[in-house]
């Protein structure tokens, strides 16, 4: 799956106005979204020095080819990945509509952590493609994690936990485009790595500090396409995003982000092999 996106900055004082405009453009009410993001980093695989040691003239051609292939595999990029948890009410929609857990005026979940649960997904995002394009285009992969010990799983899967943060925002949908106006809040370090994903141990949102002290938001307009190799799908997505950019140009400037700011690769120290 490929993700095409454009980004724009929304200053805090314009936030309400922008939301109203987006509601007008998309003809829908904003959907409130809260997410926990856990950042993991792939461990550098050991063993490259063994390749070096076992080189030379020993072994037949087939073995040499196999070693070359393994070397190529080991030297290809390693990445940061995320577990993203969407916070939802653990009650049924019927109970929600009674206004018990949903603040209809503010269109937000009432913050009672005991009444919330988290749906987790594994998210891989590649570094955006380097060709000059009117949007950021990158390979992405999302997999829902249903059951099981996912933090322990990630460790054995070869990823170490790095950090976590919290995202709050509003989503709008317009044709194939998802418009997400959001900002990042910092999460305190958990006492125990297993607690990082525990919703009950997350403080109320008001106690979480904003990453950007100006309290501004980011507007991200995204289209996911099933197969990024199909040029027709890609072109259509680009056209839709550019049309949206044109529609919103009085309110917010949308542009591709700096490609390296979206880089998910882990820098590898130069290895002399």
């Amino acid at each position: 799956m490929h993700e095409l996106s454009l980004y724009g900055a929304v200053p805090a004082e314009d936030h309400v106005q922008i939301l109203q405009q987006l509601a007008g453009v998309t003809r829908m009410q904003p959907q409130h979204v809260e997410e926990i993001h856990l950042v993991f980093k792939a461990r550098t695989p050991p063993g490259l020095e063994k390749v070096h040691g076992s080189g030379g003239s020993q072994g037949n051609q087939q073995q040499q080819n196999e070693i070359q292939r393994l070397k190529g595999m080991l030297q290809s990029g390693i990445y940061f990945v995320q577990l993203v948890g969407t916070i939802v009410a653990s009650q049924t929609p019927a109970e929600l509509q009674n206004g018990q857990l949903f603040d209809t005026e503010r269109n937000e979940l009432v913050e009672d952590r005991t009444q919330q649960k988290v749906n987790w997904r594994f998210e891989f995002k590649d570094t955006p493609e380097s060709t000059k394009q009117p949007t950021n285009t990158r390979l992405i992969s999302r997999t829902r994690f249903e059951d099981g010990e996912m933090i322990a799983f990630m460790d054995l899967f070869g990823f170490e936990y790095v950090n976590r943060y919290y995202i709050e925002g509003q989503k709008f949908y317009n044709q194939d485009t998802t418009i997400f106006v959001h900002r990042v809040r910092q999460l305190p370090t958990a006492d125990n790595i297993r607690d990082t994903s525990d919703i009950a141990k997350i403080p109320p949102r008001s106690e979480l500090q904003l990453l950007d002290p100006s309290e501004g938001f980011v507007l991200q307009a995204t289209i996911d396409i099933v197969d990024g190799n199909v040029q027709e799908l890609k072109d259509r997505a680009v056209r839709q995003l550019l049309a949206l950019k044109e529609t919103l140009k009085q309110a917010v400037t949308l542009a591709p982000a700096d490609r390296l700011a979206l880089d998910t690769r882990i820098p590898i120290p130069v290895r002399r092999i």
Partner: protein
Amino acid sequence: MPRTGLCLIPLNPSAVSPSAKLVAHLSRRYPAEEHHAYHLEHRLFSDTSSQLPGSDVKLRSFTHVLTLSHNPQSTFVCTTKAGNPADTSLITIPVTSTDAFTTLIVSKFQPLWYLRQAVVVENGISVSVRDDEWKVCIGDVKIAPKSPGAGTLRGLIIELCHTVDEPEGSTSQDTAEEDQAMFQDVLDELFKGTGESFNDAKIIITRTSNRVGATDEVGTKSTPDWDLAKLYMNVLRGQGPR
């Protein structure tokens, strides 16, 4: 708690699998009731570093991706600790994400994981015999083919599930050997007269969740049977190239 025994009999790729004969034998000899189709898909990865010459094979770690017809809506993904395949960590993902997730591992996590084997059981049969006391699943294990139906034969897999609770007061220590003998007897008894001998078959037995009744009903979300998944991963890993 039901006990499930699983054995995998390696077969020569050019051999004709006895599975059709065994199924025909069962249905002739017992009032056997056919259950859901039996199929599985298993991919085994090992850490890429351990594939290098000179690395310690004992310290190898594995990632399994297993789809099992007993749990048709989810796929198990299991990672094992380096050097201790018994120390595992399991999660489930939706069955619809299986291919995308496997592709991701193969393409983007190459420095971490190396695809060692991919096998499938496509048209297996699951039947109940002796008034549902035993459930038998039989299928041909083939190397995952590029097109359905093809694929090189690797072996025959037989799952025996004893659905009756074991007597109270028995401890797992006492019963391990008895279980082994009982499962071996049942296997021999079931297929007596087919000309196939399972004396050399190594049956691995584990206690599994009670899954009598349909777990394959669409729309019901059943709890994943972790022990059964581990049993299958264990047996299928053992079959892989060393």
